[in-house]
């Protein structure tokens, strides 16, 4: 080993030695674990043969599934994760900002009693333009412009403006806020960069009672972690590897350097989450589609009820203070 950096590290790191007490502490901990397992083994032994039979049959089924159902989605995501891991982290020079613009559509719903003389709730789509400047000192400026809603029926539009919901939604207005630390509440956490640990950490954030399948919730959070933020290569790779491990993920297409993935689910309405990644693991877009619609809310089949399109992040000298 002749690399000076290696020699320097090895020299300065020294060679700390354990004392007898240090070794005894670890040995006792291991002995306790061994003793616990030995007593459990004794209790389990009478079930060993039937359990082994079940295990073997499961192995056969799992192997059969893996043979007949290769997962191009998983393979592609793992490839992208590796590329993301090797990418240089985003560096924001002093007095500069990383600027990301995105077009967002969210679903708004209003109960019937918010309107005079209406008996059914209303749903509509609210488009927003979101711009984010992340400074070199970790200050974040977020500017949101709310555009005109999209309605599913002409009467909805009349009712919406009569109830002055446009003022509530701040339609036509631009709001700005400056925060520190990150672009969303997700950035306040120090997320693990090992895929399984990250998935567990994501699941820990779920509120009980979600109607979504857990994998879909994991996908939403994992994508949010790497969408607008200057996520480290390690976190981006971990999020992509966590996505690769989700069930029912399909590769829809892979052209022009991007790859499209989709998960279909029932909540009980049929829905799908589709997301597009570039070759370096940057999120290009994501869509949530209500496939069979919702007659109660007047939502037609195959409606995009949530959508985000992200432009590539660029370094700029200062926020646009229009």
């Amino acid at each position, binding site marked *: 080993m002749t690399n000076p950096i290696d020699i320097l590290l090895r020299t300065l790191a020294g060679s700390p030695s354990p004392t007898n007490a240090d070794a005894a502490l670890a040995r006792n901990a*291991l002995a306790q674990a061994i003793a616990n397992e030995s007593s459990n083994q004794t209790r389990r032994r009478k079930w060993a043969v039937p359990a082994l039979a079940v295990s073997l049959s499961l192995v056969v089924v799992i192997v059969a599934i893996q043979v007949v159902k290769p997962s191009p989605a998983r393979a592609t995501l793992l490839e992208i994760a590796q590329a993301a891991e090797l990418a240089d982290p985003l560096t924001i020079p002093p007095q500069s900002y990383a600027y990301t613009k995105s077009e967002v559509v969210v679903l708004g719903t209003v109960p019937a009693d918010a309107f005079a003389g209406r008996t059914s709730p209303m749903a509509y789509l609210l488009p927003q333009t979101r711009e984010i400047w992340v400074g070199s000192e970790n200050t974040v400026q977020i500017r949101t412009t709310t555009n005109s809603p999209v309605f599913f029926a002409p009467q909805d539009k009349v009712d919406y403006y009569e109830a002055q919901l446009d003022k509530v939604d701040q339609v036509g207005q631009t709001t700005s806020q400056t925060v520190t630390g990150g672009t969303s509440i997700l950035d306040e956490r120090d997320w693990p960069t090992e895929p399984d640990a990250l998935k567990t950490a994501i699941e820990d954030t779920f509120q009980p009672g979600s109607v979504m399948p857990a994998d879909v919730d994991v996908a939403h959070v994992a994508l949010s972690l790497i969408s607008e933020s200057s996520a480290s290569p390690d976190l981006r790779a971990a999020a992509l590897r966590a996505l690769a491990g989700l069930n029912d993920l399909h590769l829809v297409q892979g052209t022009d350097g991007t790859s499209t993935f989709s998960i279909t689910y029932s909540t009980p309405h049929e829905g799908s989450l589709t997301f597009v990644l570039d070759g370096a693991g940057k999120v290009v877009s994501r869509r949530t589609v209500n496939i069979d619609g919702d007659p109660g809310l007047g939502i037609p089949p195959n409606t995009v009820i949530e959508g985000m399109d992200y432009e590539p992040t660029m370094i700029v000298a200062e926020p646009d203070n229009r």
Partner: protein
Amino acid sequence: MDDREASDANIISRSLAHPEVFGVIFDRYHDTIFRYVARRQGLDQAPDLTADVFVRAFRFRARYDASRPNCRPWLYGIATNIVGDEIRRQRRADRLYLAVSGVRVESPDPFDRSVDKIDAQRIGRVLNDGLARLSTTDRNVLILYAVEQLTYQEVAEALGTPIGTVRSRLARARRKLREHEGLLTAFDPSTPNHPDQVPDEEVGS
């Protein structure tokens, strides 16, 4: 076969039916893993964290890939994860604990003059600052290879990373560390106060 001659894989396989056999793995690698954990987390935390490594290894030994006779990389991988968890729990920057008490250290390599008799404390601070700026995985690769002297293949096994990725990460980590402000200066023999420019009698030994 005598336990002393058996491969790690063989010992681990046997420990599935006879858990107490796992003690052989402990005897073989406790000191090695202790030193690694102490270098990453300091002597205060090393005893408990090292114990965690072996307890976790024991609990997950059924997942050990028996085609790998030597389990040292596997233990390093578990230790790296435990160290990473601890760093996240403490919410502090990852650094290397340096075994420098004096102001001078001698290079262990007589043919290498670049780190001979350098100001160890100053370099140590700069080095830790540079390490903290590396990505977690780059830092792990560099420390496992350079300090712990694992091979490329062993680092790949420890971190579950392709060997090509280990090579590229190592090259990138070395380059970034070498380019890190202050460390370049420290290596530059023309820099004022560099020990190589000080008369031998003032350098100390």
